[in-house]
């Protein structure tokens, strides 16, 4: 990024405030509509009115209300909240590593979580969900530390392209091992989970734990947004502007690890959300990470709810892996980015 221009767009963003607020409203409206639509349509189509009354005055006697409350709603909310988490984690990683291709999926952080979750499913099948989530965090954190260490131990440092390749290979190894565990312990009925994730199994008890953690981490990330913006200009500029670069980087990565770990524990590894969404957000609101993170959160929710909806509707009654759905959009986007990244190659 061009340092001076980026700095201007961060500091002198007053004139863009109104546009940003309008965008945020439009995105929220879009999210609301998406949620409604996704809850309404499925194996049994419901009217908007039924959905509304099921949410507002729940009546346990009615089948339609039960469908909404027990099946559709947790699943759709799960997609929304994990989409938010992956997108925000991607935005943070792109900011603090100054790598436009950073994404918790591509860097192997999701794969670290998946691997640990796979181990748990194999060896401790009756673990409580909160313990599973903690282990998922541990997996994400270990991979992150590993990749950061690899980067810092390499003589001459690691440019963004090499970091991306290293992450992809770490992800490939871990994914391969996870699949091996799944096949060996005959967990292969959940093979789709190991391959591409899914939110079909989300329940209210998951959400009770997920929603607060992800919301808190997202708000925390927004509060760090200003420092992340400065960091994205380069370490020296950030230091001149009074930001402690390594501290912000550490805190930012911690937030990303929490977000990725939490969502992987329930939905499996879903790549490309964290890659695409921050780019779209950046294009819409400029280089200010406070805005990028906020908008990414909403757009990520929309994207994943849509992806989950498509995964349900492609070939009913079978479900299709949601991650594969996202990959179909994400891959062309990634190729476009790789083609644009000329300077580094």
């Amino acid at each position, binding site marked *: 990024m061009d340092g001076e221009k980026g700095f201007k767009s961060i500091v002198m963003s007053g004139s863009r405030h109104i546009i940003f607020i309008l965008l945020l409203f439009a995105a929220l409206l879009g999210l609301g509509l998406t949620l409604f639509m996704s809850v309404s349509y499925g194996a049994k189509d419901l009217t908007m009115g039924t959905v509304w009354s099921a949410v507002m005055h729940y009546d346990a006697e009615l089948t339609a209300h039960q469908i909404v409350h027990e099946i559709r709603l947790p699943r759709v909310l799960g997609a929304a909240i994990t989409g938010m988490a992956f997108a925000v984690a991607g935005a943070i990683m792109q900011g603090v590593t100054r790598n436009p291709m950073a994404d918790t999926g591509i860097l192997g952080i999701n794969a670290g979580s998946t691997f640990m979750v796979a181990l748990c499913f194999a060896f401790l099948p009756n673990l409580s969900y909160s313990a599973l989530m903690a282990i998922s965090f541990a997996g994400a954190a270990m991979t992150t530390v590993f990749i950061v260490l*690899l980067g810092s131990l390499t003589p001459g440092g690691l440019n963004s392209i090499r970091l991306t390749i290293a992450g992809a290979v770490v992800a*490939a190894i871990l994914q*391969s091992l996870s699949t*091996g565990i799944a096949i060996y312990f005959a967990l*292969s009925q959940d093979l789709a989970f190991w391959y591409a994730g899914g939110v079909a199994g989300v329940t209210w008890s998951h959400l009770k734990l997920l929603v607060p953690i992800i919301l808190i981490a997202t708000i925390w990330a927004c509060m760090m947004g200003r420092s992340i913006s400065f960091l994205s200009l380069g370490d020296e500029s950030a230091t001149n502007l009074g930001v402690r670069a390594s501290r912000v980087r550490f805190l930012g990565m911690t937030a990303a690890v929490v977000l990725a770990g939490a969502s992987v524990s329930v939905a499996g590894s879903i790549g490309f959300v964290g890659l695409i969404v921050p780019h779209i957000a950046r294009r819409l609101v400029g280089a200010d990470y406070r805005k990028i993170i906020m908008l990414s959160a909403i757009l990520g929710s929309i994207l994943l709810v849509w992806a989950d909806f498509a995964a349900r509707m492609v070939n009913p009654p079978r479900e299709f892996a949601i991650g594969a759905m996202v990959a179909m959009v994400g891959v062309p986007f990634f190729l476009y980015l*790789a083609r644009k990244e000329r300077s580094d190659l």
Partner: protein
Amino acid sequence: MDGKAIFLLRRKRTIRVAIILLGVALTVILISLNTGTIRLSPTSVLKALIGYGTAEESMILYEYRLPRIIITMLAGAGLGIAGAVFQGVSRNTLADPGILGINAGAAFGLIAYISFFRSLDGPAALMIPLFTFAGGAVIALVIFLFAYDRYRGLLPIRLILVGIAVSAGVSAMTLLLSLRLDEDTYAFAARWLAGSVWSRDWVNVWGLFPWIVVLIPIIYYRSATLDLFTLGDETAASLGSAVTRSRLILLALAVALSCASVSMAGGIGFIGLAAPHIAKRLVGPQHRHFLPIAAMTGLVILVAADTIGRSLFHPNAVPAGVVVAAVGGPYFLYLLFTTK
């Protein structure tokens, strides 16, 4: 010491290394034959081979063990050579059919085959390599187009980056297609992608065999061209090599070789990466020396990985691809961080 002396010295070394590797390969193969639900000791294998074994021993050897191990050997050798050609042609020491997404394309071809023929058995299995080759070739073309710069030629690092992305996308499409068939096919596709040696019939051997015995000599015949590529495009052109044309030919040969290999053995990555590197360490950079060694190294790695996956985790099996990735992946990282 002049060039000829160095050449002779290298050749001597190559022959020595080849003999040692042959011994290692034979040992691994015998161990592999000796593992499984019913064990066959080396002596009974020998007896059965020359026709003096018991009926039961011969049956196990000829109907179960031999086809599988021959497929593993052929696929390992094919992948080793294919990886060497990819690395030579792209001048990228990190090129590997798995990482480049060729395997993912081959998987797509395989699933297209299943949706067409509805079965993996029978004489139609001879056609499987054709389908995987078609899938792999399309992907190779896409990657090549994306990584090709009109002014600077093939960009090595971008090649890998594009390959990673394309393979993710194609795997998604494969799973989509396989889910449209039925749950079993979906599970098969997922296992295939993890690299499990699935084929164990003679018809599969006959499907793979011609590709290997035809393609490897053709590639070996072109080893001088591969040597020229390592000098860089301009030098190669000035030494009289039609760079773009021979690059495309070699690339097509390598794609065919790796697609045929994985068609019967599953999407196994990292062998195409590791085998040529080890071979180069052993006998130096000249292709006419290290190509055969790379083939033998690939063979040893895959047979060993398959044996470990079958025996160490008995009674269940872990796909050979997982064993290879567990060892080959860290090796890739090591190479990534030590090469410039």
